[in-house]
């Protein structure tokens, strides 16, 4: 009964509107185990969810960033490929600009078809006729974020006839300013000149002797914008066509447009001549010839199947390898004819001798580079034609004797090696076969550093 009385009493009190807050006092008397347990459990679950959500979100962000970077890079690559396509297309603006000294063209796809979040912008900037740097920026958007990746690729195309020179350097794309580099090398050139559209760079006691700078005084075959060298280097031009045996010491007077010759007196400075484009060569002819004689290989592994390590072999005619070819593991190869590759040819550790074949041509022809490594030995009679660069590395064991000449965008004698080049214009012209269209090639690849 007493309880009922209390109940009534409390009910009465509680019914007073201004005392509703006192309800809590009532509930205090009840046991709240359930709510406490539920709160604890909820707290645990919330904490666990928070941790999981943090980890999950972190992973998700990383995955998104990785995907965005990867897609942006692929889009930039796509931009480069489209640029090459446009440059090849005969009636395009890009093709027209590509032929100019300072040509420039640009195009944008933002967004690209089928990918609303991504696109690319491409600039094609020439550093000379038919030599350009493609700068492609891929963009990928995720929400408010934009991811960018930039790629630079040098592209070039041969466009001219052979203009002379035992070493010809037409100039590479991009940041390079010197096209003929002689570092510590001892290079003697007989019966011919050197020709470069840009600088010659001598370093580390390089010794360059050039006999017969040009054969026709009205059409000098040597063009040097500037010569740079340090103490101990020397460069001589010996002109057999003048009345005097003229020893011209090339000096860098700070003027990149002037070539000076110092005593002995009587030496006439070589006049500047116009720049020349990279000579064309008929790659397709050699590819067809190689196929016809069953000497076309899909890659170097296919070629090396019958040319094991530590062996010597002699080939005739034309060999064409898709991709790059490296003579390594003491392979000793004699090529009576032309050895061609759509990539690079290198001699890492081995020997390569080229010689005139029965077809009347001989040489090394690559759409990229020709590298003679420190343990590589190269000699012979023929043309060395590389769409990008020729690099002759140091060697105290091997010298290099070449009857013919080098046609390359850039040639680099990177250290001491005794080199003798005797110009043979006949073998060069016969091997160039000035009739084909030399493909547009990618010279080098550049992407941002971290």
């Amino acid at each position, binding site marked *: 009964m007493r309880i009922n009385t209390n109940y009534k009493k409390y009910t009465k009190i509680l019914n007073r509107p201004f005392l509703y807050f006192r309800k809590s006092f009532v509930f205090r008397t009840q046991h709240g185990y359930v709510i406490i347990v539920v709160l604890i459990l909820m707290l*645990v679950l919330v904490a666990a969810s928070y941790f999981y959500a943090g980890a999950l979100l972190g*992973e998700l962000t990383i995955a998104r960033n990785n995907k965005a970077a990867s897609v942006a890079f692929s889009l930039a690559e796509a931009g480069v490929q489209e640029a090459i396509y446009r440059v090849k297309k005969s009636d395009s603006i890009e093709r027209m600009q590509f032929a100019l000294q300072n040509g420039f063209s640009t195009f944008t796809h933002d967004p690209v078809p089928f990918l609303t979040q991504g696109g690319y912008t491409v600039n094609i900037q020439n550093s000379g006729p038919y030599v350009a740097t493609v700068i492609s920026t891929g963009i990928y958007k995720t929400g408010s974020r934009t991811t960018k990746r930039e790629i630079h690729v040098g592209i070039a195309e041969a466009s001219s006839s052979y203009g002379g020179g035992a070493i010809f350097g037409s100039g590479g794309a991009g940041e390079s*300013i010197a096209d003929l580099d002689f570092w510590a090398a001892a290079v003697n050139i007989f019966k011919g000149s050197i020709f470069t559209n840009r600088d010659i*760079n001598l370093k*580390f006691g390089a010794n360059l002797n050039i006999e017969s700078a040009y054969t026709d005084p009205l059409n000098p075959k040597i063009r040097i914008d500037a010569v740079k060298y340090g103490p101990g280097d020397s460069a001589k031009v010996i002109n057999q066509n003048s009345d005097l045996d003229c020893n011209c010491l090339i000096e860098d007077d700070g003027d990149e447009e002037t070539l000076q010759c110092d005593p002995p007196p009587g030496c006439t400075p070589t006049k500047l001549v116009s720049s020349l484009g990279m000579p064309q060569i008929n790659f397709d002819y050699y590819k067809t010839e190689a196929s016809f004689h069953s000497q076309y290989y899909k890659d170097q592994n296919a070629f090396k199947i019958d040319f094991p390590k530590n062996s010597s072999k002699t080939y005739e005619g034309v060999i064409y390898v898709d991709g790059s070819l490296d003579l390594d593991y003491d392979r000793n190869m004699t090529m009576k004819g032309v050895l061609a590759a759509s990539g690079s040819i290198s001699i890492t550790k081995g020997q390569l001798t080229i010689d005139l074949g029965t077809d009347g041509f001989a040489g090394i022809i690559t759409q990229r580079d020709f590298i003679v490594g420190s343990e590589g030995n190269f000699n012979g009679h023929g043309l060395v034609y590389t769409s990008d660069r020729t690099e002759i590395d140091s060697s105290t064991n091997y010298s290099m004797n070449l009857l013919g000449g080098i046609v390359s965008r850039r040639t680099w004698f*990177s250290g001491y090696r005794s080199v003798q080049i005797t110009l043979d214009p006949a073998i060069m012209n016969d091997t160039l076969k000035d009739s084909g269209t030399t493909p547009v090639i990618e010279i080098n690849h550049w992407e941002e550093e971290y």
Partner: protein
Amino acid sequence: MKKKFQSQKSFTLIEILTVVFLSVIIVAAGYYLYSMSYQSFKKSSASAEVTQNARIALERMTRDIRQAVEIVTVLPETPDSPVSELKFQDGHNLWPGGGGKIQYITYSLSDNNLHRKISHYAFYDVQDDWVLWSTIRGSGSHHEHPTEFFNPSDDVIKAEKITALHFWGENVININLTASDGPNTYHFETKVLGRNVQ
């Protein structure tokens, strides 16, 4: 007084024991759940960190190698006897005439850390002229090779918890990497083609 106490509500011993027992079970279950969640979180975080380390290491090496000019380390053709250090010429200065500096990047493993070291070669008397590692100056018995120089601050740890690193392959370079943290071990492998490698 006696009546007063008798009229007040109370719990029996059984009730208290039951409640305490149940409370303990519930709290223990809650703690166990929390503990398991926390352990699981820690494990997945550690796992994520390890895989992320490996991912960074691979991405970093891939990007550098893709641009390399020359691979200096002689790599075996097959994974039978892989090497654990890779040195190559950095491809951001492609040509000496460009005014750039020829420098080399070496990836190696030390104390479970992936190191990226930048070095260069030069002759002592002209140390500002950086040359190829293979450059020879002079001829015959008077020839000399350049010396490798590097600044200790250019030897930087790029990823941790990398327990094994292997390279092999002649044209396409294979990278095999193992990342471990306690019982968590992950193996990664990728292939890279040097765009500027000849």
